[in-house]
């Protein structure tokens, strides 16, 4: 459903946890979150009958809910890792099947005190990962953006015992938790540390300097755009940005006798794309011959100093090259190399062990 009105909420914390797990502990909190977007789409089906102008029945189909979370890469657990319970380290097939609960806690909007206890929690149940994107650029923080899709969303008021103790969803959704957000002790709820000012990035937020090109495995043509500075990997590869993304295209499988889908499946093959934007030093260096194949398989693996490793396997092929800039306006010429593979993306790195000191730990 396309609604024009955008609503802005002040978000206190985001948690991703195992489906149906009761309460939220600190390791479920996503660190370094920048913003979250949520949307819902309803499908309505109208039935009319002969002899009546009024609608006969307006039938509501299953609603799709979508949550997109963006965080900076900072050494803490990645969203993709949390959303797939670690399956992202194995392969895309396992990751596409994983389900998790996403909880977004929001601040009160009227009072002038911050108690650390969220006013409401938006609980998205049984979410599948729908798309993943990583971005490293010279002019900003390295970010991870993950979109999850599902069919269940509930709002909880944390001031009421229902929201914390009981299982209000039992019988409403398939895998209902026995409590939401807090295990009951509101003084030590998982967001307490956020309000204490003690929270800090584990490895430092990854910026341009923290991209580890030395350990990364880059396509030959990207490495060829080298400079002559021997102190840097590939003589300084002049890379301006790297982005890795994939879309699982999760689709519902329905069955008779059930309102919601009984499963969602990723539409394999899943294309994984990787783009490198490079300052041109000597053209795009891509030879094209009409007499023989031009492309070869390339291995791509991106490393950063926060421990993140994006492994795109060894069968990446160049899908497009674009050359832009270098005009009379004085801008630099840049080349964008787009590589793609199918079904290979392993993501490692980030940990929620050894959290930053929190008030919880010291109380």
């Amino acid at each position, binding site marked *: 459903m396309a609604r024009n009105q955008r609503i802005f*909420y002040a978000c206190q914390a985001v948690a991703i946890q195992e489906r149906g797990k009761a309460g939220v502990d600190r390791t479920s909190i996503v660190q370094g979150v920048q913003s979250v977007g949520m949307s819902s789409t*309803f499908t309505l089906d109208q039935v009319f009958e002969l002899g009546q102008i009024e609608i006969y029945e307006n039938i509501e189909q299953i609603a799709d809910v979508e949550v997109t979370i963006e965080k900076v890469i900072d050494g803490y657990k990645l969203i993709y890792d949390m959303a797939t319970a670690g399956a992202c380290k194995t392969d895309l097939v396992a990751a596409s099947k994983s389900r998790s609960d996403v909880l977004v806690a929001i601040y009160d909007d009227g009072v002038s005190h*911050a108690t650390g206890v969220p006013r409401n929690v938006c609980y998205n149940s049984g979410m599948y990962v729908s798309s993943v994107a990583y971005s490293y650029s010279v002019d900003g923080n390295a970010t991870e953006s993950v979109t999850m899709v599902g069919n269940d969303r509930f709002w*909880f*008021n944390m001031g*009421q015992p*229902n929201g914390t103790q009981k299982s*209000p969803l039992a019988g409403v959704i398939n895998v209902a938790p026995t409590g939401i957000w807090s295990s009951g002790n509101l003084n030590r709820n998982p967001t307490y540390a956020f309000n204490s000012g003690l929270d800090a990035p584990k490895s430092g937020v990854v910026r341009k300097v923290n991209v580890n090109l030395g350990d990364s495995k880059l396509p030959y043509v990207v490495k060829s755009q080298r400079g002559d500075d021997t102190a840097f990997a590939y003589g300084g590869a002049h890379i301006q940005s790297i982005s890795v993304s994939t879309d699982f295209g999760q689709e519902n499988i329905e069955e008779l006798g059930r309102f919601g889908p009984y499963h969602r499946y990723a539409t394999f093959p899943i294309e994984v794309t990787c783009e490198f934007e490079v300052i041109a030093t000597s053209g795009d260096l891509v030879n094209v011959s009409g007499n023989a194949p031009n492309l070869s398989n390339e291995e791509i693996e991106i490393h950063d100093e926060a421990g993140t490793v994006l492994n795109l396997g060894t069968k990446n092929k160049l899908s497009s090259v674009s050359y832009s800039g270098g005009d009379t306006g004085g801008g630099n010429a840049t080349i964008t190399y787009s590589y793609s593979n199918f079904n290979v993306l392993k993501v490692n790195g980030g940990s929620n062990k050894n959290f930053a000191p929190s008030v919880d730990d010291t109380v």
Partner: protein
Amino acid sequence: MDISYEKILYRIIKGRLRIKLGDLILYVREPTEDVLEESYEVYDDAYHKAYFNNLFCKKDLKEILFYRELWTPEDDKQIEKLDKQIEDLKVEAYKSHFDRRKVQSIKRHLRNFETEQSEIRARIKSLDHISCEGTAEFARSVWIVGACTSYQDGSKCDWTKCNIADVMSIMGGKNIYPSDFRMIARNDPWRAMWMIGKTTGSLLGKCAAQFTVNQTQLCTYSSMYDNVYESHERPNDKIIEDDDCLDGWFIVQRRKYEKDRKQQEVDALTSNPKIANSQEVFVMASSQESANEIYDLNDVVGRSTIHNRNAQIEEAGNLDFRKLHDIQTDMAVQGQQEGLNKIRGR
């Protein structure tokens, strides 16, 4: 322009008020910067004296006002409410400026609201004179009038021969109101003087720092009218000549500007198009202050939706998002629209 306004204009230009006390003619000049500078010392002395005589400080007065039933917290809320109502009525006056009858009716309401507001404010200030600040301010005013009053020949007034309270009472009855300033600022002869003064670079024959309070205020209003005349959305002359309608125009412009500013702030929040185009955007807040700033990004409809949602969730304890009133309204609208499209498509 009415002759009474010309009289006020030349009083402002000359920077003095001519007062008749029987046969005696006195001039009360606007205080110079020397007088003003010294007057604060008078204020400080009077304040200390009042303080050591155990007079109340202004901040302590609220309690006394409350016990004497002169003020309640409701009064503050009422003032805010009246402010909002006055603002809305002015916007309505601006939008209905072509309908004189409606504007007259709005103006009657406006004057009633303004009277009600000033009555509440007068009650809140009714005990100011027994506070240290009130006493000190009064002493300062008396001192300024004393220092600035002279006879026709320029010699200082002998206060043994006339009563300063009489002079102050006459002055009180000759206050210049904002409506007077505005009338003078947008009409000749002052408007012509202002325009010439701006081009020649000399206005009132002195630098801005030496302007009297009234002169400064007149120049501020003149500058305000310059901005209105030069605006690319300049209102018509009828609106400019009507203070309430013009205030309405200002409010509309301010609201437009605030909306644009909020939109820019919102756009700057996230570069991720998926999040930026979401129906609900959650921005991380580290404190209640930053949370309030984020909530301020919402327009009136957004705030009202959040408020209604909170009330509904609070009442229910937990709620399927499809049961939220705003979602149900959206679904109903969507259903109607799709139904209509289906019929049209047949």
